């Protein structure tokens, strides 16, 4: 089962109802089942806790006044295990201090008894987020979402994954295009074969050609050994061509030929080799505009854009922000070896409505900043605001961008020459001494590129 948004007649999620009054439980069950929810009932707070660990409800409706454990203690216990679990509190007394305390503890809504059916259902509809189930398909294991826009995207991706069709993923930087590409690969029949990703914008044209298609020994100066190329390395699997919009025009025609014939001819070779590779390409550029400007071949565009998928900006999926924050808080807790922190409800609401120009990459940075700077277990609104303001949009400085390019270039040259420094230096147009200095600067060890390691 995959993540679904509430829809008439479908599984709308599960609700745990908690009340020590038998008639109230029967009434709530009737109303919620009638509205399409799967309902589990508990007659006490402790029964609710044990039910919760086995049924993993998507939302809890609890009475405030109960013997043994009251609703407020139950909220504290439930949120210790799952801070994002929506809880609706019912109370026979309309007392403001209780409502304030319940809200402070992270209760999603506070309703006064006797509650009207329509009011309760409206609040449940508003707050329920059907959870991803354990053991689900690869998309719900590897991607964090519950928003309708992502549910619909994943439904398309699931269909696409079953076949071999070429996929094109558009979307801004930091939205997770490679995560989606990997999930499609993992969900496909190719999952036992390699998934190889290459950033077409980070490697110069000649090197990229050799990277993709391979080369014969002696194909060019410094090519002392045969190089298999990424198409052949990905044989049987998936080749992910990231930033395809940055691929030089000269290479585009060569790529088009491979996509037409599914044969690659390594640089310097007279023979073509058949390849069985699924192509997923992605870019943050508007390829249609690039085609109109003559920067991208129209025929290649149509060849790649067989099934277009669009990764939405994070601001377009605010419902996913709490889930993503929770996920990265969990990762951060594991990484730091400290207890899991969580955002206060008002901080969560603030972050969910932020504009996130840097998308998920920016969200990860905000989580790191907040958990590093905040000593207490709960990150308050003020800290979230500070982190979002301080966290720069992830555009690299020119110096960093140049350094990244230079390092990628050196890696490519070393890979092609299989760690032969003299040949690599010759290709790069530097003398050996200068070349060694560069290798030291970027902490690259030529030996790593020997022993025939041709894969990415």
């Amino acid at each position, binding site marked *: 089962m995959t993540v679904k948004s509430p829809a008439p007649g479908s599984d709308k999620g599960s609700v745990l109802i908690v009340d020590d*009054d*038998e*008639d*109230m439980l*029967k*009434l709530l069950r*009737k109303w919620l089942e*009638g509205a399409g929810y799967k309902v589990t009932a508990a007659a006490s707070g402790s029964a609710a806790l044990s039910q919760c660990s086995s049924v993993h409800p998507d939302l809890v409706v609890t*009475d405030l*006044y109960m*013997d043994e454990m009251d609703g407020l203690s139950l909220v504290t216990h439930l949120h210790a295990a799952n801070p994002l679990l929506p809880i609706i509190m*019912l109370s*026979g007394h309309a007392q403001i201090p209780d409502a304030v305390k319940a809200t402070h503890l992270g209760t999603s809504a506070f309703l006064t*008894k*006797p*509650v*009207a*059916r329509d009011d309760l259902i409206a609040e449940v509809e508003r707050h329920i987020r059907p959870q991803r189930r354990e053991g689900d398909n690869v998309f719900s294991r590897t991607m964090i979402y519950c928003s309708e826009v992502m549910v619909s995207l994943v439904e398309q991706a699931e269909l696409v994954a079953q076949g071999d069709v070429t996929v094109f993923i558009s979307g801004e930087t930091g939205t997770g295009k490679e995560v989606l590409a990997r999930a499609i690969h993992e969900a496909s029949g190719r999952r036992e074969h390699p998934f190889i990703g290459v950033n077409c914008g980070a490697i110069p044209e000649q090197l990229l050609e050799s990277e993709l298609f391979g080369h014969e020994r002696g194909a060019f100066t410094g090519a002392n050994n045969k190089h298999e190329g990424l198409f052949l390395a990905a044989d049987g699997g998936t080749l992910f061509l990231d930033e395809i919009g940055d691929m030089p025009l000269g290479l585009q025609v060569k790529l088009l030929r491979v996509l037409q014939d599914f044969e690659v001819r390594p640089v310097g070779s007279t023979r073509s080799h058949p390849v069985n590779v699924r192509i997923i390409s992605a870019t943050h550029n508007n390829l249609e505009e690039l085609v109109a400007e003559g920067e991208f071949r129209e025929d290649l565009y149509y060849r790649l854009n067989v099934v277009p998928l669009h990764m939405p900006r994070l601001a377009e999926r605010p419902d996913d922000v709490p889930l993503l924050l929770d996920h990265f808080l969990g990762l951060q807790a594991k990484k730091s070896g400290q207890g899991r922190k969580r955002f206060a409800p008002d901080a969560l609401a603030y972050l969910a409505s932020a504009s996130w120009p840097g998308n998920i990459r920016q969200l990860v940075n905000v989580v790191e900043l907040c958990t590093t700077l905040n000593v207490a277990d709960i990150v308050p609104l003020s800290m979230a605001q500070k982190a979002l303001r301080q966290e720069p949009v992830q555009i690299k400085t020119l110096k960093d961008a140049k350094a990244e390019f230079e390092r990628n270039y050196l890696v490519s040259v070393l890979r092609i020459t299989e760690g032969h420094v003299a040949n690599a230096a010759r290709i790069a147009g530097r003398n050996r001494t200068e070349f060694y200095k560069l290798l030291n600067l970027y902490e690259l060890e030529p030996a790593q590129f020997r022993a025939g390691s041709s894969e990415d």
Partner: protein
Amino acid sequence: MNDRIAIHVDADLEELIPGFLDNRHKDAARLAALLEAGDFAEIRRIGHSMKGAGGGYGFDAITDIGAAIEEAALCRDAAAIAASAVELSDYLSRVDVIIEP
């Protein structure tokens, strides 16, 4: 005093109504015994439950009677509790449930 009281109830609650009203008859009977024993805490609990569930089932009067019982139990007002118990029994004896299709 013998005028009938017609209460319209949603069809989806039909099967729950007999059990709900039966429990209120039991409450009316228990209230007298609890008053005798001076168990105001349990009386309050009964009133609280009636108040919470009554209106949801369509019986607003049961919510009102429950609220009065809860209030009276807090003040340990035995006379008011006894009066509410009588009121509850009277209401239950006169109510006619009409199921709305």
